[in-house]
């Protein structure tokens, strides 16, 4: 079944990161969801997927589907039904095809104007890396590495463990992990431990089932979101434009081709740029430490959003008139006066 238009689709059932261009669900004939498959991060769009992991998910879904009706395990869903047309701003302002990112952008705008927006809304479907684990791409939900001292390491997660549930979400894919983490990051559950179930092959060949509880730090769910097109509708008033310098421009300025080098081309209104004291022709080279080169200005904005929240004092290392200086100021309050999506 292929869906290319979101009109009429129940977003409370088919919940996914609508900034992607491809996402899949496995369901029964009543559209109860067994598993989700897809998702991306700041890398290449298909970097988190593989044919092998898709086959793993299909294998597990068929096994689940073969169970007696009353013992099948489905993923939880938000109660009620919400289609894109139920978003008042979309209904009032949008004509024509409802693309996935359009629906997402209207959700963001609506939540801001309804005063329900929170920073977490920008970081939906957090990566398992935010808790210190990387997932083996060829499997989909087997732990490849555990970062020392991370929430996962402290909880006892080990390389080779297969994650079989996160909170109340049965897991058959990398994206199921992210769906489980997304539910765990809801404000009502903030501060509570996140329960994972693991399948582990013991040294004696026995397969163990383990329950662990992860206790991450506040705001653990923030990750790189600079690739998301929906950022343009986030209530983050930058008040500035800019671009990432090309290698030849960097050489002229004597800065590395491997680290941040974003030139501010205009400061045109109140917003982030003016609030932290940036000026036209400044070149931002650190936040304040050097970070990796970004190819797009939006990626720079994503880094700012990942590190800061309104009210924070932000420091930036800047080249201005040939001198390296630090500018600082408050991260502005969330604001947008937009009510429609271009």
């Amino acid at each position, binding site marked *: *079944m292929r869906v290319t238009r*979101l009109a009429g689709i129940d977003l409370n059932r*088919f919940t996914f990161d609508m900034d992607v261009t*491809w996402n899949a*669900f496995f*369901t029964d*004939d009543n559209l109860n969801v067994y598993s989700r498959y897809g998702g991306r991060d700041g890398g290449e769009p298909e970097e988190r997927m593989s044919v092998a992991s898709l086959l793993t998910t299909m294998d597990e879904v068929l096994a689940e589907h073969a169970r007696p009706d009353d013992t099948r395990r489905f993923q939880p869903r938000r109660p009620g039904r919400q289609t894109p047309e139920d978003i008042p701003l979309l209904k009032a302002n949008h004509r024509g095809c409802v693309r996935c990112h359009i629906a997402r952008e209207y959700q963001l705008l609506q939540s801001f104007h309804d005063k329900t927006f929170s920073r977490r809304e920008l970081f939906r479907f957090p990566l398992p890396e935010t808790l210190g684990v990387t997932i083996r791409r060829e499997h989909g939900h087997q732990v490849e590495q555990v970062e020392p001292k991370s929430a996962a390491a402290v909880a006892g997660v080990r390389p080779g463990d297969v994650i079989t549930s996160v909170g109340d979400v049965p897991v058959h894919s990398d994206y199921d992990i992210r769906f489980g983490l997304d539910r765990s990051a809801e404000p009502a559950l903030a501060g509570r431990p996140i329960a994972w179930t693991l399948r582990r092959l013991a040294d004696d060949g026995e397969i163990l089932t383990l329950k662990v509880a992860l206790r991450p730090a506040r705001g653990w769910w923030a990750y790189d979101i600079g690739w998301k097109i929906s950022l343009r509708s986030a209530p983050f008033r930058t008040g500035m434009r800019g671009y990432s310098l090309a290698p030849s421009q960097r050489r002229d300025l004597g800065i590395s081709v491997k680290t941040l080098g974003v030139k501010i081309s205009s400061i045109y209104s109140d917003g982030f740029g003016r609030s932290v004291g940036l000026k036209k022709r400044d070149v931002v080279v650190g936040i304040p430490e050097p970070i990796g080169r970004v190819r797009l200005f939006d990626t720079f904005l994503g880094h700012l959003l990942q590190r800061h929240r309104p009210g924070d004092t932000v420091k930036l290392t800047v080249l201005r008139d040939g001198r390296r200086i630090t500018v600082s100021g408050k991260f502005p309050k969330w604001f947008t006066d937009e009510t429609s999506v271009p």
Partner: protein
Amino acid sequence: MHRPALVLLTATLLGSSLMAAAPKNGWYRSLGEARRVARESKRPLFVVFRCET
């Protein structure tokens, strides 16, 4: 069953269930029609959201 064989069977089952009476490009565009076929074939649904320009 040997795992590679099981995986191949998995793919075949999923594929064949949706290919049965499917439109010529192999994909249903109607959720109702796809659900009906899934019900009759007793197979799960593979629902893909894809942005097409």
